[in-house]
Every structure is written in structure tokens, then in C-alpha cells.
């Protein structure tokens, strides 16, 4: 199969969906003139015009609010958040309007829009440009939250998100944009709400997503050399959560570790752990262990950022502790 970058995969998704449906358009800061910080919009303005690929003012409440208004009145907007770190600026629009309108208005009209949010650690970008805040959004009823780990799902989930009638938040890790992976030709649609067994194993279930998924697969490689067979699950969607896939895997392996880049306290890992402690505790032969960032803002200096990061070795170490 051909290999393309994560960035190209998102670009193909946009291109195909904008071609398929002329109600789809995209707006955000600095996306048209230079093609986006990660090249993820390159060429779109030439193909679809500046009207459908809009550079906005630095006005996050206007970007999200206007997308909501347009979605309510017949369009299917994609709004780019530049960096997920700026979602606090338009948090009210996200949780009080976008997420609630369909329910609160009795289902009169849906809000078919996608918020694209590049997140995570890259390049020592420090406290305000490195965050993983996806856990907040899994606590907000009405939103779907997807978070691909590889180019194929980057394409498939973005296409599914654009076609979904509910508002979808699409987290795309900054450090993934340049990574390459196999993407089938033609239509690729990844189902929203379905996790994927990325690697089969029998001794322990390792749940992860986004950039940390790659680290998890590396940890599984390390442990394979130590005769520990790790089953890796790529969540792909964090809301609604695919409990079934997780519980089925834990039933088989009897051990569970969850790894993510976000700070551990109050993270997605807590929810996964709690689901299993509630619905599958009898499967377990060991404590449920979470691997995440320490409870600190992201530091700038190289050694500190390094110490802050989740690594394959840290994940492997957590797994070794279960045996």
C-alpha cells in the first residue's frame, strides 16, 4: 500500500470531502496563505477558493461561534483551532453552544461541524503550546471526540467526522503530522466510536491513542523480547468510548495498562480504568496502571521536557510491574 504522511492524509480527507459536498468549508487562522502550520491545508485554497478556505482574524470565539451558526443554517464547517491550547478561549462556545444545541432545542437541528485541534508536545514549545486536553471534552455530553494515531485513521476519522451530523472534535497530534504510514487508495472511512486492536497479545492489554499509541507499540516490541505478549488497543474515539473492545481484551489478558501523553490526574486513563473497575474487575489479575504526564505544566528545558514525556521505556516499566 502507498505510504503518505499524516498531514497529507488529512489533506486528502479535506480535499475529498470538499469535493463531495459543497457545504463543507474550512476556516481558521493562517490556513490559507501558507497552508497551515503543518502544511495540512496546502493547496486547498487554490483548488476550492479563498471563500471555502478562509483565513480568519485571531478571534477564536468568532471562529467557533460562526461555525456553529453556519452549521445550523445548512453548511458543514470545519474550524481550525491552530493549537488545541487555545480552545480555552472558545470553551464557552464549545460546551455551552456547540455541544448542547441539538439536545437543548429538542433535536430541532443538528450542528454538523468539526473542530480540528493540533495538540501535544513538539519541539520544546513549553507550557502554552504543548498541551493535551482531550479529557475535558469527554466530560461534555453532546460532543464526539476522535483522536487518530496514524495516517490511515487520520484520513478515515476526518472524513467520518465531516460526515457526522453531531459536532466532532478532532485532535491531531503535532508530532504526528510528519509521520508516514500506509493509507489505502480511494475512500477511507474509520468508524467513530470504534477502538481498534492494533496488535494482538495475550498477557496484558495496553490502551492508548494519538502519538502515545506509537510509543505503546514500541513498548510492546520491547516486552516481546522479554516474553510478555502485549495487546495494544488504539482508542481512536474517546467519546463515546468503545467499552466493548476494551472489556473483551481485558477479559482475555487479565491485565490493563493505559498510556497517554496528557497529565495522569483526571485524564482519559482514569475513565478507562474506572470502566474496567466497574464492569470487568473480575477479569483482573493485577492493579490497573495508568501512565501519563506528571501533574505539572509542560516545562521548556530539554531535560525537563524529556523527563515529562511518556516514553516506551516508561510504559514497558509499568507493564513489568504487573507480573
Amino acid at each position, binding site marked *: 500500500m502507498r505510504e503518505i504522511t499524516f498531514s497529507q492524509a488529512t489533506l486528502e480527507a479535506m480535499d475529498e470531502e470538499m469535493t463531495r459536498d459543497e457545504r463543507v468549508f474550512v476556516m481558521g487562522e493562517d490556513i490559507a496563505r501558507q497552508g497551515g502550520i503543518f502544511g495540512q491545508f496546502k493547496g486547498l485554497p487554490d483548488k476550492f477558493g479563498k471563500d471555502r478556505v478562509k483565513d480568519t482574524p485571531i478571534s477564536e470565539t*468568532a471562529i467557533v461561534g460562526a461555525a456553529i451558526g453556519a*452549521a445550523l443554517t*445548512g453548511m458543514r464547517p470545519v474550524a481550525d483551532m491552530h493549537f488545541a491550547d487555545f480552545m480555552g478561549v472558545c470553551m464557552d462556545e464549545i460546551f455551552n453552544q456547540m455541544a448542547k444545541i*441539538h439536545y437543548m432545542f429538542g433535536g430541532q437541528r443538528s450542528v454538523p461541524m468539526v473542530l480540528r485541534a493540533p495538540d501535544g508536545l513538539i519541539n520544546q514549545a513549553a507550557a502554552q503550546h504543548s498541551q493535551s486536553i482531550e479529557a475535558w471534552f469527554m466530560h461534555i455530553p453532546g460532543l464526539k471526540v476522535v483522536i487518530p494515531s496514524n495516517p490511515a485513521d487520520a484520513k478515515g476519522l476526518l472524513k467520518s467526522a465531516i460526515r457526522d451530523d453531531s459536532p466532532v472534535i478532532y485532535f491531531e497530534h503535532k508530532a504526528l503530522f510528519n509521520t508516514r504510514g500506509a493509507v489505502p487508495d480511494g475512500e477511507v472511512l474509520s468508524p467513530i466510536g470504534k477502538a481498534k486492536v492494533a496488535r494482538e497479545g495475550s498477557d496484558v492489554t495496553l490502551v492508548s491513542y494519538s502519538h502515545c499509541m506509537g510509543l505503546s507499540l514500541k513498548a510492546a516490541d520491547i516486552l516481546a523480547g522479554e516474553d510478555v505478549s502485549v495487546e495494544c488497543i488504539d482508542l481512536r474515539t474517546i467519546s463515546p468510548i468503545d467499552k466493548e473492545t476494551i472489556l473483551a481484551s481485558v477479559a482475555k489478558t487479565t491485565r490493563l495498562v493505559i498510556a497517554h501523553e496528557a497529565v495522569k490526574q483526571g485524564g482519559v486513563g482514569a475513565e478507562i480504568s474506572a470502566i474496567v473497575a466497574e464492569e470487568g474487575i473480575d477479569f483482573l489479575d493485577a492493579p490497573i496502571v495508568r501512565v501519563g504526564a506528571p501533574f505539572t505544566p509542560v516545562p521548556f528545558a530539554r531535560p525537563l521536557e524529556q523527563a515529562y514525556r511518556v516514553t516506551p521505556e516508561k510504559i514497558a516499566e509499568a507493564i513489568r510491574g504487573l507480573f
Partner: protein
Amino acid sequence: MIIFRKRGGGSLSAKKVKEKKGLNKYPRTLLEQFYRTMLTIRSFDKKVEEKFLAGEIPGFVHLYIGEEAIAAGVISNLSREDYIQSTHRGHGHTIAKGADLKRMMAEIFGKKEGYCKGKGGSMHIADLSIGMLGANGVVGGGFNIATGAALATKMQGKNNVSVVFFGDGASNRGTFHEAANMAAVWDLPVLFVCENNQYASTTPYMTTTSVENIADRAAGYGMPGVIVDGNDIFAVYEESQKLIDRARRGEGPSLLECKTYRVKGHYVGDPERYRTKEEVDKVCESNDPIDRFECTVLDGKLFSREELDAIKASAGKEVEKALEFARNAEEPEISELFAGVYA
């Protein structure tokens, strides 16, 4: 306190009155619509107040009483395909846009037949089928939604407009700034209608707002800012018409500030310890928008007292019917709680 325009005195001849007010250009049906809309809003909200105080209506309710000329005047310029975005004080806008009183009242009562199946209540009534994009419990939450609807309109090649109502208090939210700038820089067909009723909840306008007139802020976005007596429906209608027509012509957004006064408490049940009864009474007596309309059309001999009373009675009857409907409507089933989280 702002000074309201005095209403036309009874000493002029009917002809003079009509000329002075430019009433000749108004078709009788439009005048009747003005009156019926204002009265419907008034009697609807009086009924809501009464039933809230009687304990039949729960939640938070904000009344539009005394500000009817704004919704009725502005929205008379709109078609069903135009959009409005409302506020927490939304009954008036919703009625003026042509919503069904029965479904509104049922929603306020939390009933299954309500606009939102009882899931929204007074602060969240919407009727997407008539371009009413929703009341909003977040002050200033609607500016950008209206901008987005205008953007859609423009992209779809339609010539509809999007009108967003907001309070003096809301004008200090950052969302106003972001929406106004975006609408202006993209030449979107938005009319920003400020209902300056002198108070944001307990707070007098001038203690929290750094300009005399909200309309003065329009220049900062390169858009026209117009001030109008918000209790004079003729003035509201005419000024908003110019700005709406302008937007339809593709000339971009503008801001209309309607000076009015909130004669009722912020919400039903407000102890109103922050102002005197005298202050309120003065406005009620001298500046009621419905009284002013009546005087004008009576002075101009366009309607007789009896004709007006008949309209009033019919509006009142509609509200009674809505109340009956709402009371008799069913409560939603529990299964409704779980429905509609996703589309």
C-alpha cells in the same frame, strides 16, 4: 437616565399627526401587525409572569414587557428565511418572528409539545423552521452564531440577513468585539440590535460601560451605528429597515442601538433593591411603547379605540389558548432524557 422623545400630543389634527409621523406610507395591515405583535408579546409575558408567580412555571424567566417596540419594529422587516438570534429575554423576539404561542408556552411549562420537547425552557426556545436560531442563556453567546448564519447565507448566495439582539450588558462581552470585527471584515449581512434597557441585571448601564452610547462602538469596526428611540415602533421600524436593506444589498453589517428601559425586574421574582419604584413608574407612565403607538394611531385617526380593543382582545385570546394548551399538554417521558444527545 436617557431622555425619551415625547409622544405626539393630542392637539394636532389627524392629518398633521399622520404627516409628522410619516404615517401615510404605512399600510394599515402593517400597523395592525405592529399592534398585534406588541400586544401579543405583552399579554404573553404578563401571563407568564402571573403563572410563574403562581408557581406553575419553574426555572428562570425574563420578561420582555416594555421593550415590545424593538422586536416588533425590527422583525417586521424580516421574512421567514431571515434569521434572528435571541437572548435570555427572548419571548418577544420569538413571537415577533412568528412562532407558535402554544408551543412556546408549552416549552416554558416544560411540556412534551413544547418547542424543545420540554428540554429547554424559557431560556432556550428556538424555532429553526422560521429562522429563529434560539434564545441563549449565555449573555453574549449569540453574536457569533448570528455572524455564522450570515456567513452561510452569503456562501449560499441568498440575500437574507441575520439579526442579533443583545443587551447593554452583553455589549461588554468580548464576543461582541469578535463578531463585529468578523462581520465587518467579511461584509456579512448582520444587524446588531442593542436593546439598551439601562440595566444589566442589578447594574446600571453607565457604571459598567465606558461609552455614552453603544452605537458609538460601531465606528471601531467601520460600520454604521445608529441610535433610535426603542419605545417608538415607527422609528425602530424605519431605522432598522435602512440597515437591513443595506445588509441585503451586500454592504455589510451595522449596529442599531434602541434606547429603552427595563420596567420589570431582571427576572420574575427579582427583589429589585438596586432601584426605586419611582424611577420605574415614571417610565411606565410616560413611555410605554404600546401606549405611544395607540396615541399616535388614535390621534391620526387610523384606528378607532374599538378597533384597537378588538385586536387586543384577539391577541389576549390567543395567549389564553396557548396557556390552556400548555397546561393540558403532557410532560415528556423519561426516555426523552436520553434522546438527542447526538444527532
